[in-house]
């Protein structure tokens, strides 16, 4: 028991920094290990031919095919076609969703009048409209766009509705008491409140758009990655199928990461107490 000095001094015992740094590297290392174990397991199962190679290609064969594909121009054209449909569909859905969502969300009569129709139309799976789209537009990108826009619209629309409804009553009363015009209120009150919701809606819509773009190509058979899968599958070219599956997963991952990054940057100022809004 030593005599402590009157002014508190941080008696620094020796810090063990090793433990801290090891913990921050542990997660990525374990994650990498997980991926390696999975790939190794895959390779073992395929090599031991526990499953027929025409049903399950080996990991090495798949990645080799992936390598060949990446150097093929046609592959990138297909990626471009898929992403074009994705981008256009997402853009149309986003604009429509934000405009209609904002309009209906802010006008109470519209809100009440459309409530039942929204609850009725929303659960209808967009893919149910695929046969109709094929009939109406044939094997073209427009058919795919109908499917993409219909589904993504709801994602954005519903989020904007929630966002506009979430305006803090105190903030709104403050704005009104200061006599802000409608336009100013929209800019400085509604938009900032709705912005996080808009970003969430866009992020969800972006991943839905990819799913439907590829699904449309698989079913409507307009050109693109989904089409490549179907053709490869019907030719028994299972290695290509698996390779394209990996590509689509990578695309989905990239889209997800990009949109999360945008969301985080743009909303750095926003104290998001709400996580993923529980619908």
């Amino acid at each position, binding site marked *: *028991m030593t*005599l*402590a000095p*009157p*002014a*508190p001094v*941080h*008696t*620094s*015992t020796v*810090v*063990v920094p090793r433990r*801290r740094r090891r913990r921050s590297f542990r997660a990525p290392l374990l994650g990498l290990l997980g991926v390696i174990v999975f790939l190794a397991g895959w390779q073992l199962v395929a090599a031991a031919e526990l499953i027929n190679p025409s049903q399950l290609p080996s990991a090495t064969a798949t990645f080799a095919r992936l390598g060949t594909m990446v150097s093929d121009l046609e592959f990138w054209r297909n990626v471009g076609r898929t992403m074009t449909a994705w981008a256009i569909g997402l853009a149309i859905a986003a604009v429509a969703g934000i405009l209609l969502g904002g309009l209906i969300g802010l006008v109470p009569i519209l809100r009440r009048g459309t409530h039942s129709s929204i609850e009725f139309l929303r659960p209808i799976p967009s893919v149910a409209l695929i046969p109709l789209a094929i009939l109406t537009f044939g094997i073209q990108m427009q058919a795919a766009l109908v499917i993409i826009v219909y589904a993504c619209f709801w994602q954005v629309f519903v989020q904007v509705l929630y966002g506009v409804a979430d305006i803090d009553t105190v903030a709104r009363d403050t704005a009104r008491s200061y006599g802000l015009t409608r336009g100013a209120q929209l800019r400085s009150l509604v938009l900032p409140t709705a912005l996080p919701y808009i970003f969430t809606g866009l992020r969800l819509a972006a991943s839905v758009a990819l799913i439907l773009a590829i699904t449309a190509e698989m079913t409507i058979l307009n050109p693109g990655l989904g089409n490549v899968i179907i053709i490869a599958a019907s030719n028994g070219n299972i290695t290509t199928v698996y390779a394209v599956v990996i590509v689509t997963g990578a695309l989905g991952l990239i889209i997800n990461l990009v949109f999360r990054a945008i969301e985080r940057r743009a909303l750095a100022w926003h104290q998001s107490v709400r996580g993923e809004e529980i619908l």
Partner: protein
Amino acid sequence: MPETLLKVEHLKKVYESSTGVVEAIGDIDFSMRRGELVCIVGPSGCGKTTLLKCISGLLRPTSGSVVLDGKHVSSPPPNMALVFQEYGRSLFPWLTVRGNVELPLNHKKLSTAERASLIDDALLAVGLDHAADSYPWQLSGGMQQRVAIARAVAYQPEVLIMDEPFAAVDAQTRADLEDLVRRLHLERGMSILFVTHDIDESVYLGERVVVLSKSPTWVQEDLVIDLAPERDQITTRALPRFTELRTHVYEQIQRAKRGEAVRPAA
């Protein structure tokens, strides 16, 4: 000595943080007898909550020991109940008031009848017998804290530890809750360890007030409150002795903040 319920010896807790090492608690020594109501006060940031967490077994101290009822504390002991400051985050919102009070009793070997009577008794003691089927979030802050207290009381612990429980409650409710704590202490002989930053509250409630120093924390003073056991918000707080005691504690805290107090040699 069976009289001593809680003994804290040379308790020390050191944290590693991103900015270096923080010695939250330097050397804390005190003990508590059975049936006592001891209040702990100290300047802000002196590690009161850390101390409570070490005593209650939620945190492992760097060195020193905590002995509760003859047994060394290394994890939350079964004969202890905690009441937290954040009642909103401590009560389970998916359970009713009765459900919340009942939950800790479920792993004690009790018959349904015994359990029910404990719950009813605890709710009656805190004045919430009419709200048993409400949910915590339907109640006001003060009532929620009563639920937390009822939960602790029904558990029948040897010692009740309260971590600044009334800090997040308005002044009038706080007065009622303070009287509730005194009543529980007197009527049931509960041993209570009460941490607070409110000096008046510590003197009003406690039989002893332990004043902590600034970080690295040690026990600056262990003061006996020689007020009558029957206390009252109006009369007790008007007593000259009350004013003397609270002034003394206040001065001690000021000295603690300025770091003027010097630790006596071992």
